């Protein structure tokens, strides 16, 4: 079970998650400091390590729309946040899967900041309101990337399989 630490609306763009002016910073080890940089209070709490790993951000539809910048994912992954949204923009969702950011597609989700949620394979249960919301499973093809531990490990495996003499 984990707490909702931030609730956002529809169309949260990568410019909001990771403002373009920090794009010169690329390494996943360095991007977490700029997560939601323009939401000064939340960014401050993240940097002060006041947000426990596994905490949940609730998004509306089209979360992560806009740029393909992977910093928008690595910055959230760095704080081990979980994103539960009504829907995700394609590139953000794929980047999330590739880097191992936990993303949960939950079209009907209703939750407020402070609510405690339990996320299972099939549903998100809001323990505070005692409501249950079904989860849309990720396409099975994506599951193989998650199972491998991300796209780097998955590609490494494919490369080794390919280069192994038969």
């Amino acid at each position, binding site marked *: 079970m984990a707490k909702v630490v931030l609730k956002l609306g529809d169309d949260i763009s990568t410019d909001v998650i990771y403002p373009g002016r920090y794009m010169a910073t690329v390494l996943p080890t360095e991007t977490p400091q700029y997560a939601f940089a323009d939401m000064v209070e939340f960014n401050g709490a993240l940097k002060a390590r006041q947000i426990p790993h596994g905490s949940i951000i609730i998004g509306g539809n089209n979360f992560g729309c806009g740029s393909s910048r992977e910093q928008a994912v690595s910055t959230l992954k760095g704080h081990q946040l979980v994103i539960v949204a009504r829907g995700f923009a394609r590139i953000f969702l794929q980047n999330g899967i590739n880097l191992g950011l936990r993303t949960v597609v939950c079209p009907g989700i209703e939750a407020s900041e402070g609510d405690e949620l339990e996320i299972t394979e099939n549903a998100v249960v809001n323990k505070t309101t005692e409501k249950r919301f079904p989860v849309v499973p990720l396409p099975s093809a994506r599951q193989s990337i998650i199972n491998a531990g991300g796209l*780097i490990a998955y590609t490494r495996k494919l*490369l080794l399989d390919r280069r192994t003499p038969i």
Partner: protein
Amino acid sequence: MGMTVAEKILARACGRTAVKAGDVVEPKVDLAMSHENGALVINQFLEIYQGTNLQPKIWDPSRISIIFDHRVPAESPKTATNQKKVREFVLSQGIGKFHDIRGDIGGICHQILPENGYVRPGFVVVGTDSHTTSHGALGAFSFGIGATEMASVWALGTALNIEVPATLKVIVKGKFKKFVGPKDLILHLIGRLSAQGANYKAIEFHGPTIRTMSTSGRLVICNMAVEAGATAGIVPADKETVRYLRAEAGVKGKIDLVTPDRDAVYEQVIEVDVSKLDSQIACPHTVDNVKPIKDVIGTRINQVVIGSCTNGRLDDLAVAASIVKGKKVADDVRMLVFPASGRIYSQALAKGYIGALMSAGAVVMNPGCGPCLGIHEGALGDGETALSTTNRNFKGRMGNPNSQVYLSSPAVAAASALKGCITSPRKGTR
């Protein structure tokens, strides 16, 4: 069952006779493009090889293009060092299609690829930039990916686990009014579809208005297809595509046109008649917050930006120059112009557009992404408003979360620069 353009291209690229929407495929990539974020791709690429005894080697360096455009010339030591790292990598791997910061061959990636003939109809193109959808203008299946996915493409030559998208067919008819054009069409369409209306789908553009549209205009509509969430925007290749590739991009040899089957299956068909369309404006802070210009005329602006991968081409500069020629930009407005490539800059100089813009008071900047994404130039002050021909107006996009960005065509932007407020060129020039 017939196939859409996206289905045909993906079927060929994975060696199958047919695929349909929803299939998961691993297409061979014909062209893989990155910009400064190549620095991150390199980092991820090298990590793939960690702990193996394999030498990190790009599957086919001739199919990689790297173009510096997001922060040129470098705004900080950090960017300069990243660019240096990419340059060294380009040399060590023998990457051919590299465009450094130069006045002759440099420019914005989404102009450099077309003008050099790197993209052909039927290609699978991936780019670490969401506006990679642009290249569907040449009949390619072209989409944006993240840096780690690109690292995987560099290693394998294929894009992994790609779902064949369903396709929306957009049929456009009618003749544009004067000073109304492709930008107004795509803003109108995004307003109708919403920012997520085409999520996980391709958009195929058809109809007489598209058939008579130049490649420059097609690049505008495909560029912004992603603002409706589309995986790809595609104009099926035709005579104009061949003309552009031969005459403007210097392509020789055979060009295969990929057209959809007559019985292709579309998820939805949308018809647009542009004959009554007026100039369209995307209002803060989402691209789908689109209004006809009459609703926002008179809105005060502090900065006008003309350029970018959306509207920094020769015809865009031509219309802007024609509107401001012999006039003056309003005293309280900064007008920034950045051509999409060095080649376009030179052409605009030769035709006198640059002179006309500068005499009017515009600052003409070097080709690049410039102020569009608020990294290193043209930032807005607190409470300021910009009118821009770029493609995004998200909160903070131009570098300041306490500012506002409106999006328009170059004609509206130029007319508005003269007045200091959002102005219709259709009235302003008479």
